[in-house]
């Protein structure tokens, strides 16, 4: 099974996005990929006792890459959904994300709740659970999907769409970015929906799944999980938020 392969190979290949601060993103100075999810992957690798190899994948390719065996685990903003749970296995939740909608501040009067965007075009990252959620929850919406979050953001700024559906944290960063540009953005208060995120593992790879869950359980117990969270989401970061979840099983 995969766990044996990983041990033989001596490396754990972890798929991350690389375009999603602070989960995984490129440090411009070192051109290395770093972030919350990268740290978690590191912990898993340490737990198994192998080296970590980070592989950047696009949002749409997360599940195919995993199923095709090009990566061992996926820690890439992977929201839990019943459909997906049929395709792959999920580890304990490593994050819980409200999915919200980013709009242009100039439209703030028009769009107050997600439902106001019915009949509009909204951008999302292709293959993301936000895309599916938008389609499911906003009536008559047209989704325009992009390969990565920044381009979906750009589409909103360039008025190509009226809203951008994504996880709150990601949107928060873009909102801040927009403050230095002519087109300022705001996030709708009301979340479209909330979803837990987890590490994805190929179906049936129970040994590897157990290793991951053990790692997470250990992190939770030792308080190290909290620390890693603090490092990326703490007070001195741009992404200050409270940790309202535990590394524990996702209840579907």
């Amino acid at each position, binding site marked *: 099974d995969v766990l044996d392969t990983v041990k033989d190979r001596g490396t754990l290949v972890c798929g991350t996005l690389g*375009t999603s601060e602070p989960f995984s993103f490129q440090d411009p100075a070192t051109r*290395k990929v770093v972030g919350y999810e990268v740290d978690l992957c590191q912990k898993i690798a340490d737990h198994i006792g192998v080296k970590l190899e980070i592989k950047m994948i696009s949002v749409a390719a997360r599940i195919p890459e995993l199923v095709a*065996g*090009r990566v061992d685990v996926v820690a890439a903003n992977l929201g839990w959904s019943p459909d997906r749970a049929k395709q792959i296995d999920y580890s304990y939740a490593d994050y819980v994300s409200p999915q919200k909608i980013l709009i242009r501040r100039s439209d703030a009067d028009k769009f107050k709740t997600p439902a106001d965007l019915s009949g509009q075009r909204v951008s999302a990252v292709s293959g993301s659970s936000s895309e599916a959620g938008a389609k499911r929850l906003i009536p008559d919406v047209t989704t325009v999907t992009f*390969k990565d979050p920044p*381009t979906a953001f*750009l589409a909103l700024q360039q008025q190509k769409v009226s809203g951008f559906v994504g996880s709150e944290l990601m949107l928060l960063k873009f909102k801040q970015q927009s403050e*230095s*540009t002519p087109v300022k953005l705001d996030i709708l208060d009301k979340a479209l929906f909330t979803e837990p995120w987890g590490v994805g593992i190929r179906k049936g790879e129970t040994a590897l799944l157990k290793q991951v869950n053990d790692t997470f359980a250990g992190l939770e117990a030792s308080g190290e999980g909290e620390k890693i969270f603090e490092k990326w989401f703490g007070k001195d970061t741009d992404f200050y938020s409270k940790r309202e979840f535990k590394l524990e099983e996702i209840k579907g």
Partner: protein
Amino acid sequence: MLDILSNNWLLLLVGQYPNGDMGGLVATVGLALSSLLLACPFGILLALGRISSHKVFYYPATVIVYIVRGLPLIMFIFWAYFFVPIVINRPVAGGTTMVVALVFYESAYISEIIRSGIQALPAGQLEAGRSLGLSYIQTMRKVILPQALFNTIPSILSQFISTVKETSLGFVISVHELTFAAAQINNMLLTKPFEVFGLLALTYFTLNLILTGLVKLVETRIANSRILAAQG
């Protein structure tokens, strides 16, 4: 634009290397080069099939060429992306996927180039070889192909330029080539898409302009040596 270049030239040139796979411009050229080199043998085989009088060779080769001409490269990339790992039962890197797709795609185009190169040779060359007692294959190898390949070098080099451009599709499956690097920069800067993609366009432009110059150079050289050969 200049400050974007000076801040990110390394990423454009080699991608994340050495912290990751080789990327950027170097990967673009490397992908194009390796695909085209690998495509050449297949192209030759296909060309031989296309000129063969045996139906068993002619029809499969022709069908392959038509299929490739009829499908967008991106379809090949998707097929390779999802099915090469299944077929060989082993994970495959994005670069490899891209090379597999490009080899498929380019083989067909190269085969058409080589075929026309072969058909441009006087029929007497094949007859002369066969009359000496050489077999069809021997004649092809020693007489026809050396001439046809030599004469088609410029067209094959032009195909290299096309291939360089086609590697940009690697972006779609996150192969770390030049376009991908530019997209990364765009994602970091966020508000300078015109500058970033303009810079990207200029990079390709310069690279291919240099290559075009090279093709012209080789072309004149070959034209000159052809005159030498045709004097008699």
